[in-house]
């Protein structure tokens, strides 16, 4: 049988498009998820309480740090700027969330966080693809 029909190598030409789509979705979701925390003191207080309930140390410091980190990493993903750093930060943030918040829950409850950890790892290694500010800056340097 034709190997190309089995493994569809021709689809590799759309990798940058798929990376752009996943960046926009994940970045947009991260920004959406913490927007109320960074724009409302009351929602930030609720997030501090959530972290305290889950046994995190120094929740008054960690809550704003986590919210702002997710906001900035989300914006960097959308832009495709410093994408590998953003991916590392996202992977680390959501590995901590899985361990610190979801550890005793079901896989279904793990999924929203562990998917972001895995996606972060993908961006940390594969990078943002051709349709990104990182790629634009790399082209300008050449």
């Amino acid at each position, binding site marked *: 049988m034709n190997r190309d029909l089995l493994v569809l190598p021709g689809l590799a030409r759309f990798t940058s498009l*798929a990376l752009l789509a996943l960046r926009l*979705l994940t970045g947009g*979701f991260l920004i959406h*998820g913490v927007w109320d925390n960074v724009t409302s003191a009351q929602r930030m207080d609720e997030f501090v309480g959530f972290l305290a309930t889950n046994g995190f140390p120094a929740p008054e410091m960690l809550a704003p740090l986590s919210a702002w980190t997710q906001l900035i990493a989300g914006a960097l993903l959308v832009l495709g700027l410093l994408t590998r750093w953003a991916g590392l930060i996202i992977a680390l943030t959501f590995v901590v969330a899985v361990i610190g918040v979801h550890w005793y829950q079901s*896989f279904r409850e793990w999924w929203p966080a562990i998917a*972001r950890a*895995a996606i972060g790892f993908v961006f940390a*290694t594969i990078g943002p693809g051709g349709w990104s500010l990182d790629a634009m800056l790399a082209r300008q*340097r050449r």
Partner: protein
Amino acid sequence: MTPRALLFLPALARFADAALLALRLITGGFLVWAMWPNISNAETMREVIGYFAASGFVWPEFFAPLSAWAQFAIGIALILGLLTRWTGLLLAFNFTIGMIMVHWHDSFRDQWPALSLLFIGLLLATTGGGRFAIDRRIETGRR
């Protein structure tokens, strides 16, 4: 390390295949875990058929088992890295239908599980499974 290497971390590209393996194992493992109760328990499958009917699907008795078995098979194929691009396309198609029929009016937070699976499917449909996938052996013709 040059400032440029520190900013853009190109050295991390060497772990891309490991990241694709992790993404395949986590996504495939999740699908297998989520679908196992549906395909192994007739009562659970009847509940899923009812859920499909309530969501407006035609022929729920046909499409509920089809979707459950398809997701289970997609999960196994992702874990193995077998026909990954086809699998990614199927995953994206399955959750496009799920988004339209079930999650359209949900909040972004509630859409995330299905949307993330849809876009992970699109990514794997283009990148393939990476070096640690059975597909690589098919590509290179090795046994």
